[in-house]
């Protein structure tokens, strides 16, 4: 039970009336780094948000970190971290303010201190006391990545993690992903930047039409 971090079977999720997930079957083991690839509108973002307990799963089975999402999708949230498209930072607060708020609200005893996290993402020093509204898109992204480290995460859900980051930022992110998976964290990552993401992945699946395809043709389309 513990070794399976994510278990989805026939999972259906709706965005309004639109079935963004139309019966997903997926199992993710502990420490695995799973790359989900697929065209725009395939349902990758909704898959990640459903795993995070943000989007309800209305049909099928959905268990994440031992929590049945059909019954209760709230309690799983504090055990995972989601890096979404939107960074969700507070524009008026400084970089350090934002990270301090994450640290205080998650109450993760073993989390590294904010200063250390800032340094790991190259945000220490002057940048730390700059308001987020003055940052570039890539710098904001770095702050969002930094907040991953402050959460007691057994599961990282990364939506286009490389988007917007410069070469240095990508190096730092890749190092964090490798390190996290070595420490036993499972990573599910949706990405279009395959040449960047593929070396990190221990397994690759293809998503289309709100489903995960493991058939030979899908693999050929994805990998070739």
């Amino acid at each position, binding site marked *: 039970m513990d070794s399976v971090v994510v278990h989805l079977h026939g999972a259906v999720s*709706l*965005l309004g009336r639109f*079935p963004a997930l*139309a019966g997903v079957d997926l199992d993710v083991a502990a420490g695995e780094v799973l790359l989900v690839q697929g065209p725009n509108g395939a349902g990758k973002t909704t898959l990640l948000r459903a795993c995070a307990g943000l989007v309800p799963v209305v049909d099928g089975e959905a268990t994440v970190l031992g929590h049945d999402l059909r019954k209760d999708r709230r309690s799983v949230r504090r055990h995972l971290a989601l890096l979404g498209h939107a960074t969700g930072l507070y524009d008026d607060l400084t970089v350090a303010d934002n990270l301090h708020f994450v640290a205080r609200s998650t109450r993760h005893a073993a989390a590294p201190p904010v200063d250390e996290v800032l340094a790991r993402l190259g945000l220490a020093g002057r940048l730390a006391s700059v308001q987020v509204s003055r940052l570039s898109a890539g710098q904001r992204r770095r702050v969002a990545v930094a907040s991953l480290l402050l959460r007691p995460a057994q599961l990282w859900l990364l939506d286009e993690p490389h988007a917007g980051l410069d070469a240095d930022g990508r190096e730092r992110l890749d190092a964090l992903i490798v390190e996290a998976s070595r420490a036993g964290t499972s990573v599910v990552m949706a990405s279009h930047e395959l040449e960047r993401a593929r070396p990190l992945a221990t397994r690759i699946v*293809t998503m289309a039409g709100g489903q995960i395809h493991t*058939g030979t043709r899908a693999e050929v*389309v994805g990998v070739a």
Partner: protein
Amino acid sequence: MRSGIGTRLLGTAAVASLALLAVMALVITPQDVNQLDAVRFLYIHVPLATLMYVAFGVTAVASVLYLWPRYRARKWDLLAGASAEIGVVVTGLVLVTGSIWGRTTWGVYWTWDARLTTTAVLFVLFLGYLALRRVGGDIDARAKRNAIAALAAAIDMPIVHKSVEWWRTLHQKSSILDEETFMHPHIHGSMYWTVLLGIGAFLLLFSWLLVNRYRLAKLEDRLEDEGLERAIAERRAEADALTGAP
């Protein structure tokens, strides 16, 4: 889903009792000593005011049932909405009939009477509720939001009532006409029975409207549900087109 025999009987009963009410109210009952013919407003005003409380009571109870996990079902949200829609129309009519009555007896359309003021606040509260209902979003999310809004408004009603009542009693009373005579004209005999008949007739009308409005809402809902299964099938077909599976 055609309207059943029960609904049609209900409709017939409503129309028949309303016709009887018209005869009783306009022909058979006598004039009042003070209010003369204006007293006849009572026969629709009092039933409408009763209906107003019934309608919003139904909305409140249905909202509680929706929020109660054991009873949660979309039908409660639909019922709450149907009842509130009728309730807002009824409240509007209460204010209009009250104003016309006030004009003929008091000489003014509006007075800051405790009941009138409370009714006006109730009217605006539920206009807001209906405005909120029209805002889109995920169905279950919408239903939950509606139910919470209905309860937040409902718990305000006793406070509004109490505060307005104090406000008016601590200040001068209506000086145009003795309030007692106005609020409690000498109702007896046929007048008494006509008011009761009015309440009954309007309750029948309300039930009939509610059944039909609810049925319509249910049909709309089912239409959306049937769309869903097709949408899932279409969504899966998208994938087949991409991966080339049969």
